[in-house]
């Protein structure tokens, strides 16, 4: 059974996406209680980015919508990331 429609996913498809997001959130919270050692930071970052992309792609329909909408949003995001990474580097945040 297909979970995609002209406008995005079906209601069942959205519920499946929400379950995936809930599982990732549970894994994120587990890092607070379980010692992940050197994988702590990378795993949290990967899970955060995964959740971000899933919400933006499926709930906000960027995956199904015009590329111009994606450009509008990601242009702002990339500009913000570049600007603030540079600012943080200037304040020696990463050293």
């Amino acid at each position, binding site marked *: 059974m297909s979970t995609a429609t002209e406008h995005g996913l079906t209601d069942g498809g959205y519920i499946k996406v929400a379950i995936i997001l809930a599982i990732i959130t549970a894994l994120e*919270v587990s890092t607070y209680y379980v010692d992940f050692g050197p994988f702590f930071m990378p795993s949290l970052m990967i899970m955060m980015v995964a959740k971000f992309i899933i919400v933006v792609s499926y709930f906000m329909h960027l995956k199904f919508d015009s590329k111009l909408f994606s450009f*509008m949003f990601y242009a702002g995001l990339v500009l913000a990331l570049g600007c603030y990474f540079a600012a943080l580097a200037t304040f020696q945040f990463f050293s």
Partner: protein
Amino acid sequence: MADTAVHEAHDAGHGAHVTSTGLSNNKLAMWLFLGSECLLFGGLISTYMLYRGRVANGPHPNQIYDIPFTSVSSFVLLMSSLTMVLAVSAAQRRNDQQTNLWLLVTALLGSTFVGGQVYEFTAFYREGLGFTTSLFSSSFYTLTGFHGVHVTVGVIMLLVTRSIIQKKRVTGDKAESVEIVGLYWHFVDVVWIIIFTLVYLIPA
């Protein structure tokens, strides 16, 4: 030619306008606004990251954060994104009853999140973390406070949209109106996904 006429008639039926891009100007404007919001929250998050260790004589972040409580709040906000997308889906099916129901549930979940944030701020204040206690406290309250204001504005938008639909006063495409409010709501959720990880889960 005939196809164009059919499309225009279809758009007119939805109350949409023909644009030079073929896309909705309202939706384009919302995406542009959300892109600019990335810069606002980027600045607030960066400031917090810089100052989170500057606690002066006040409490340290790890001493006051209540991770189980914030995890539940995060889950509530995440689920509100699901109910929001279900509202958009119902609006696209032109099912006003379900649209109104899911908009109300989303607003209630959003209000629960804001209530949780007010409780959290009150608890932190009682533990000695005022707005001017330290650079950490100022940047923390500014970042999470700004996010809370965004959620509150989102709740108001949801309730107003629901009221307009109930009174049958939507002038344009109803599904698009709900979708645009939904975009704002999901963005607020996306910002919290980042705040939850960078502010709460990564120790200072």
